[in-house]
């Protein structure tokens, strides 16, 4: 059954069609990759789904309910949370407090919040940094914190915007493992990533955006052979991109 249905969603900025009439479906428990060249509209689509921007046209249906145009906090309470491509921790709060925000205000609020926040930090491998101010974290740890905070809200659908980009190989591998274990916990994931090896290795299915339009939607092997996709990446093979 479809958990998320994006129906004819567009988002314009002035005359710019950042997202142009996109239809897509994400099934319960699926891990879908969202790729496309720079400026394709991936982050904008995430923000429309998360409620940061209302759609200029179209519908976002989650669990059979229309969520397009709701405030982000309402969308979060329905079970959708997104990380931010440019990490935005609360710099003067500790790592634990950062996670606590999502735990206390998010979708699932049961049990002792501090305990839950600690469990989440344990799960993403940040427990040893719990009492450090977020502004003192290294970039890889900040990216991890983005994921931890989002997980703290107890999402059914997690939107991950380039949480691996910029990491070295070891760190990237760790985060890939983390994403797999999030999926095993039953969380549905929609993720943006430029690295083809990462996205091919993780995704059940890949959606490709180009100039705001969806140009492909298929299993990884098929997408990597799709001429339209290869052309979108300026002729270069996306596998090596």
């Amino acid at each position, binding site marked *: 059954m479809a958990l998320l249905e994006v129906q004819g969603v567009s988002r314009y900025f002035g005359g710019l069609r950042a997202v142009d009439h996109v239809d897509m479906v994400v099934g319960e428990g699926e891990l879908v990759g969202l790729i496309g060249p720079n400026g394709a509209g991936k982050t904008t689509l995430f923000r429309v789904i998360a409620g940061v921007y209302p759609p200029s046209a179209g519908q976002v249906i989650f669990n059979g309910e229309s969520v397009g145009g709701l405030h982000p906090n309402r969308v979060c309470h329905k079970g959708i949370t997104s990380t931010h491509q440019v990490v935005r921790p609360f710099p003067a709060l500790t790592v634990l407090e950062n996670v606590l925000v999502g735990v*206390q205000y998010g979708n699932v609020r049961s049990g002792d919040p501090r305990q839950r926040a600690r469990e989440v930090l344990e799960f993403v491998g940040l427990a040893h940094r719990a009492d450090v101010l977020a502004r003192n974290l290294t970039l890889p740890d900040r990216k991890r914190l983005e994921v931890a905070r989002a997980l703290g809200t107890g999402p059914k659908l997690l939107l991950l915007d380039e949480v691996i980009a910029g990491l070295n190989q070891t760190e990237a591998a760790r985060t890939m493992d983390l994403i797999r274990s999030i999926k095993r916990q039953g969380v549905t994931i929609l993720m943006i990533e430029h690295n083809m090896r990462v996205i091919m290795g993780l995704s059940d299915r890949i959606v490709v955006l180009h100039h705001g339009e969806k140009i492909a939607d298929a299993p990884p092997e098929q997408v990597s052979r799709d001429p339209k996709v290869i052309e979108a990446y300026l002729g270069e093979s996306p596998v090596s991109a």
Partner: protein
Amino acid sequence: MTVKERERQSTAAAATRRAGPGREALFAVGGAVLAAAILAIFGLTLPANSYLLFSGFLLFLFTTQSLAWNLVGGYGGQTSFGHATFYGIGAYTTALLQENAGLHPVLALLAGALGAAVFSVIWGYPLFRLRGFYFAIATIGIAEATRLVALSPLRELTGGASGFRMSTAGAGGRTSQYMTALALVLATFLTSYWVRNSKLGLGLFALNMDPEAAETLGVDTTRLKAISLALSAFIVGLTGGIYARAFLYINPNDVFAFSVSIAMVLMSVIGGVGTLIGPILGAVIYVVIQDQLGAAQITFRGQTFQFRDVQLGLYGLLLALIILFEPAGLVGLFQRVAGRFRRRGGTQAVAEQQALLRNETGDE
């Protein structure tokens, strides 16, 4: 980044670290005991003469206002330049209910505070959609509008420009005023402490630092701002009522004055906006300056300048300087100085010393 640089960054920060879960109960009990002790000490060693009693009374009222303003202006980062509106509404509601409706003084006081809180919710919701600068300007407009409404259309009720006089019946002596204000400032401090360590406080800090990130984590930012504003308005409303009962005379031009709003901003900013202790330090300094310079004047090239007349300009300048050079006010300054002398104990120890401040865009 070196330890030293980290320390410098930490200077824009609060005085105390936020408590852990186990310590919270301990702090609450400890705080209550401490408050009771302070109450007892101040109460038992009442200032001998009535000038000191009265100065203490004023200091407590100003400190209360400063702490209350900080709940929304500091923790939540919603800079209001219009808190006089709550002061005026509290003062007038209390006075009118007590005088014209014969309500019990305590009930009249609570009604005034409630009136201020309800009024804040009415305009808070629409105005919180505005960001930063525009919000600040809008709050000035609100306060001025209430002043003008009280001055003219509601003249019959408020006494207009000639003010409203109360009978001496419910006044109570200087000592009882002093004790009332002392109890209020302690209650406000405990409230401020509690908010700081509560879920509400965490949400306010988060939305202050990054509203969009807070929203995506489920924080209803508009609701939280409204709650903190209402709480702030309630407390400032109480100070208005207490003022009215102490002076037995109020005037729209005094209680709704822009200078009343500015004073609250100033006290918090001088001491350290968003911190727990800062607003108290700021209030002490502000009250001392007002007391010492209130009647001062200088003559320059044959022209006489009253401090009273130029104070807004001077305070504006002071605000600008603090915001430019030490946004965390005195608390920030103390921390910076303390950082110089502190032994360098590695990142962890430094982090332990650090706490919260508003409006940081991160250090990337």
